[in-house]
């Protein structure tokens, strides 16, 4: 079985640490990846905000490249990219006419047969079964599992976990030895793509997410999305300025938690 | 062909379309007099062989009409009629019967005006199609062949 990986742009840049932890984990658990050759950006929020067709064509090219290279299963660590790829697959499956149009735009055959896994699904499927054998240090902390929006929504399209109070990451973290807290902000939005254009909104929304986790005594916030990570972590000074606070709770990628 | 007046037979259920046609009357809505109605308790009772019988006896067009889905007086008779109709339609199509000569519709007891529309539309269409001579020819030929083959 050949796994493909679609790292997405953030993982080669601002979320380099996430990328490194994913690859480190794969190595430790003897899982081999093939990067989808010559992958491009999925278009993210910008594309679907401004141009629907483009927002489908960019992910379609990625999926077509994967198919071309015989990668049936693709791991997508970035929740935002994951959402874009799955939504594209869904939309094109629903509308054969649109599928033909997009195939024509990307000048490639597109079948839509790849299985797209998010990072939790990947961990659950390939890491957890051999976790006991490999784990060095238990992650004995109280954690707030923050899923963000795009890992669970749109629920009927992604068909992954439940939209309200999801549990998959909590289960993974429990298996690592952590104690997940009851956390109502699990799927509240961090401000997403407004990181640069509306830092005030990001500070406001991410601030609430951090405040509740701190208030409930979590030692760390666990995330599975580079965008959430950058908003909760990199934007911390802005958040603290906005709320006049001094939050210092760490934000850790789920893959880093396993690698600890 | 301009003075051709088609013969159209309507097979209708008692509770919806027959009552709907009564309402057309009480509303004094005029429609083509070419159509003549045969009453059934339910579209579920209509044996589609009757359609062939009607064509064989010189009908140029046929209307089958009953209660709207879910409105059947007998709960599900129209549903069974529809199911059988789907099968029968294919069979008739296969046999070479001109499906344009058959109208299948739902007319409720409250749709007097709709009944007039259904009749007029059917009569106009059949008038354009002309007399259904090919059916008679088809039957005659098959009878001939049967006789020939003993």
């Amino acid at each position, binding site marked *: 079985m050949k796994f493909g990986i679609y790292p997405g742009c953030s993982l080669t840049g601002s979320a380099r640490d996430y990328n490194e932890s994913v690859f480190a984990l794969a190595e430790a658990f003897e899982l081999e990846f093939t990067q989808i050759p010559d992958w491009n950006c999925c278009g993210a929020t910008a594309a679907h905000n401004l141009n629907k067709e483009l927002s489908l064509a960019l992910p379609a090219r990625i999926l077509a490249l994967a198919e071309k290279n015989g990668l049936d299963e693709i791991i997508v660590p970035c929740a935002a990219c994951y959402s874009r790829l799955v939504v594209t697959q869904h939309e094109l499956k629903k509308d054969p006419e649109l599928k033909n149009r997009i195939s024509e735009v990307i000048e490639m055959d597109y079948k839509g047969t790849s299985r797209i896994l998010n990072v939790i699904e990947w961990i659950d499927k390939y890491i957890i079964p051999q976790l006991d054998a490999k784990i060095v240090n238990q992650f004995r902390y109280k954690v707030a599992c923050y899923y963000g929006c795009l890992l669970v929504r749109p629920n009927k399209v992604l068909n992954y976990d439940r939209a309200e109070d999801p549990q998959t990451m909590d289960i993974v973290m429990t298996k690592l030895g952590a104690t997940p807290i009851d956390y109502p902000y699990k799927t509240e939005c961090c401000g997403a793509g407004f990181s640069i254009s509306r830092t005030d909104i990001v500070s406001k929304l991410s601030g609430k997410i951090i405040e509740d986790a701190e208030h409930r005594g979590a030692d760390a916030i666990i995330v599975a999305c580079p965008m959430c990570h950058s908003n909760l972590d990199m934007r911390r000074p802005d958040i603290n300025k906005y709320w006049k606070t001094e939050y210092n709770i760490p934000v850790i990628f789920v893959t880093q938690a396993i690698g600890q | 062909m301009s003075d051709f007046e088609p013969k159209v037979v309507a097979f209708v259920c008692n509770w919806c379309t027959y009552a709907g046609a*009564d309402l*057309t009357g009480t509303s004094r809505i005029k429609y083509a007099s070419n159509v*003549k109605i*045969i009453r*059934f308790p339910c579209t*579920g009772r209509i044996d589609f062989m*009757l359609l062939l019988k009607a064509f064989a006896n010189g009908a140029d067009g046929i209307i089958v009409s009953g209660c709207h889905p879910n409105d059947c007086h007998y709960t*599900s008779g129209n549903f069974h009629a529809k199911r059988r109709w789907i099968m029968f339609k294919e069979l008739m199509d296969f046999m070479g019967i001109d499906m344009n000569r058959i109208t299948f519709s739902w007319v409720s007891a409250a749709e007097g005006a709709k009944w007039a529309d259904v009749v007029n539309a059917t009569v106009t269409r059949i008038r354009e199609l002309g007399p259904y001579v090919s059916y008679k020819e088809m039957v005659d030929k098959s009878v001939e062949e049967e006789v020939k083959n003993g």
Partner: protein
Amino acid sequence: MARIGVFVCHCGENISATVDCGKVADTIGKLKHVAYSTEYKYMCSDPGQTLIKDAIREHKLTGVVVSACSPRMHEPTFRKACAEGGLNPFLCEMANLREHCSWVHEKNELTTEKAIDIIRTQVEKVKLNSALQPIRVPVTKTSMVIGGGIAGIQAALDIANCGHKVVMVERSPSIGGHMSQLSETFPTLDCSQCILTPRMVEVAQHPNITLYTYAEVESVEGFIGNFKVKIRKKAKSLDEKACTGCGLCTTKCPQKKIPNEFEQGMGMRPAIYVPFPQAVPNRPVIDKEHCTYYIKGKCKVCEIVCPTKAIRFDQPDEILDLEIGAIVVSTGFDIKHADFFPEYGYGKYKDVIDGLQFERLASASGPTAGAILRPSDGQVPKNIVFIACAGSRDPAKGIAYCSKICCMYTAKHAMLYKHKVHEGNAHVFYMDIRSGGKNYDEFVRRAIEEDYVNYIRGRVSTVYERDGKLIVKGVDTLLGAQPVEIVADMVVLATAGVANPGAEELAQKLHVSYDSHKFFAEAHPKLKPVETNTAGIFLAGACQNPKDIPDSVSQASGAAVKVAALFSQNGLTREPLVAFVNRTAPPMYSTCVGCFLCQSVCPYQAIEREDFKTRDGKIIKTVAKINEGLCQGCGTCVALCRSKSIDLYGYSNNQVYAEVVALLNEF
């Protein structure tokens, strides 16, 4: 030799204005087999009818065609006239010259010709009519009421008070249903138990009512007036005659930690228990699933303490065979329970409860003796939020309908809370207030105007716990969709009313239709709201759809009248326009090949199996047989029958073929 009489009506000028009635009568009169043909101004008038009666006798008519208005209008009139003239009424047909001819066409040759064609068709049909006799069906004058909630109680009492026998079957150990769980009732705020308990006792004591509690319907066969019912009386592990209801066993039972169903899980009960103090009958049952003796084989404390030695551990279930004439289904409803609302934390947070749980909290006989206390810590909630439409009108959660009762009970709950916790704040999130009903809207207004309940128009997005409080995030759509956040101590969800578990199974046993939500279906949404599509089975109460007490009671009385009407005669008379399976000489018996496809399409379960046997009892052939008591004459089986073995009186194959031929050919 057929002798048909044709009577052409002018209907004043309604027919004669566009149809040349004289010509019609003349032309028809010349047809073969038409012995008499005439015209008259008003056929339905007394002289008109006399004309028909006289002609029948004078011309020895064997069939009559009245050519007038729609048969849907006057068929019964003219059939009656024929009967009075000495002709079997089913030998009379009508030709619809008015609605289907004179009123819808212009005055011309073609219209008159069409009138002639219509009559000719009916003449050919009536020649093939058979003289039929009305079908008589015997009726067993005992009814069965399934479900002993308020609807069942009302129906049973009404039928019993008409002097007829009633068997009431109740699944749980006591009658009373959901109404017995309620605190006070809208719009009068009278205590539910106070008005219900006397009715329950009346049921138990009524000489015409036999009550079986802890019993379920096992099977139902037969048809209107003649149902054969099997009832399973589950073992109560008790000799009910010996038991005095002293209650000693229930206090001594060592197993005390079973969630109490009656208290909606907010209290505990022992394994031998009476569901609630006012239960009828007031006798305990042993819950075998939780009883230590049944689980581990030892204990028997109840047996030891029982002063009358009434405990029977080895009691088996009992099956009763009953002959029943009519059935009232009143099995009630349920509400949506836990995990239906993860965004509201229902089932996760103890202080997020449903409406029935609130009823128990507010009930003087409930687990808190009527004090409104949070389940988590027993504190009085200072801020309480009620969420209406929790699940109702929510197609995304599979329930598109309005549960109808929640608006009113939510107003009542808020009011009861304010009456008990004067310093508290009650908030109600609602989408619409549906308070149609006598004194209903006034009641809601009272909650708002006099008890200062804070009504907020908007749905709640999420509820979560923080520091022992419940954070309710909603919106006020009347303020331009302004977000509203309330820090509450307790949240009450008006969860959707749904069909009872087991409703589907019961509907199948009864051969009664049900809708996609498993609520029982009425025969007609407007004109037959208490009938089902199976003759002799009626509906009462919330098993049909969520209903409040007044509606349930009214419908129950309606159902009772249907039963009483059925029982008011010694038998049942039905129109004989039913299907029949042909019979031929042995050894064939019938052309029916016994495929029973007809059985699968019959909406009335009117098709039975009939065995033909040799003298020594060996079955030679099994064919279909129509139960005339059940058949409604739709004819679906006739059209479907592959061997053409079934036919329908009044619309026989010969008749409709004759009609088609007559309509299209000139004789």
